[in-house]
């Protein structure tokens, strides 16, 4: 009855009530595809304060092994809040090709 379906191909495959029985399936949808601009980090200016991480509304920024911050472009929508908040000016928003 509650057979797992991936993305429904046709209307017959839509689960009753559009219920989803696979936890975490929203992760498969890459909202980063909506992006018009991407953040580019200049780590020479980064002081590792983490303000970009704190302000990112998507929660898609994380710290790498060296302590610098990176945005997961699968989910970054390019809002630019990180670049706006980064007071050392280490983040630049660049137009997507």
């Amino acid at each position, binding site marked *: *009855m509650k057979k797992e379906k991936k*993305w429904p191909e046709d*209307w017959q*495959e*839509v689960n*009753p*009530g*559009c*219920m*989803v029985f696979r936890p975490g399936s929203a992760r498969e949808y890459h909202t980063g595809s909506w992006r018009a601009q991407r953040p580019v980090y200049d780590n020479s200016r980064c002081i590792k304060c983490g303000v970009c991480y704190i302000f990112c509304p998507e929660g898609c920024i994380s710290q790498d092994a060296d302590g610098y911050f990176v945005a997961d472009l699968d989910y970054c929508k390019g809002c630019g809040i990180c670049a706006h908040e980064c007071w050392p000016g280490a983040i630049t928003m660049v137009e997507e090709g």
Partner: protein
Amino acid sequence: MSERIGMEIALAAAEAVALCRPDVIAAYPITPNTHVPEHLSDIVAEGRLDADFICVESEHSALSACCGASGAGARAFTATSSQGLLYMAEIVPIVSSMRLPVVMIIGNRALSGPINIWNDHSDIMSQRDAGWISMFAANGQEVVDMSVQSFKIAEHRDVMLPVNLNLDGFQLTHVVEPMMFPNQEEVDAFLPEYKPYAAVHPDNIVSMGTLALPEIFNECMKANDEVLKGSKKVILEVWKEWEEKFGRSYKPVESYRTEGAEVLLFAIGSMAETAEVAVDQLRDKGMKVGLLKLRLWRPFPFEEIREAVKGAKVVAVLDRAVSFGGPGGPVFSEVRSALYDEKDRPMVISEIIGLGGRDVPVGDFVKIAEKAARVAKTGPEEEYEIFGVRGS
């Protein structure tokens, strides 16, 4: 079972709902449905029903609470009227789209303004396209019976849709009628314990009310539409079972003295019972007139209507709601649309009557039947008429 008990119909509705053992009742009082949840709160307080009665602060919360309760696997019930239904409106299509079998009684009342607490059908017509099963009762016995039927229909695994049961405010809600009640054993045998398709629980993970992107939204709407259309099969099965067990028959479109009728009145709700008297009077005078009573509003019973009007020259559809600046009353425009592709179709005229509790006496149905007979020969006189308006 065979004993008739005299009771106000709103209280009878509450007694019938209590027999269905709802787990959660959430409602906010609004005239004229108030006595339904009020009496249910009495029943819960007296310990006759083991249910959570949630005293919410608004109708929006009432249906939201039912939505959440139903999603958690509870049998949920609410009731409202008029502006209360409008205040729920944000949640109304969500409950159907989430396939939650909530049952709601609507004590039909005019929408404001001007403020008016009395009956017409403008409230439910505003929620016509929200994906619920929608039915009308014409008297107290039908309210009792259909209250129980509603849960069975809503919860059927091939349906899983909310049901709204409409009864005319005051004309039905506040009237004392003799009614027969099934006993608890009979209802338990008819309506099994609710087994949800899925329920929100930490051990059985499910997400309800998820986002649907443009790439899938059309398919979601198609699925909702197909399940609502397909629910008619279950509704007919449930009514058949009811007739076998309790001896009272229910059809999507009921006919009264339609044999050989050239003029058909087409009524919805309690006024159909008054219209029967008019049909009797006109039949006594030799007029070939009959009456159709619409019980099932959604899913719309196309085949039954096409079959029921066969042989008639004119159908006068009596609406208790105005579609301002539109093609006529909402029931009328759908009936006429259903007949458009028929080769031999009757003329269909729209008469809007009984707004905001305006009395509809037998004589009005007589006049409308006589007008219908006249325009069947001379042609329609207007797009629609608000019948009996002073000054027109």
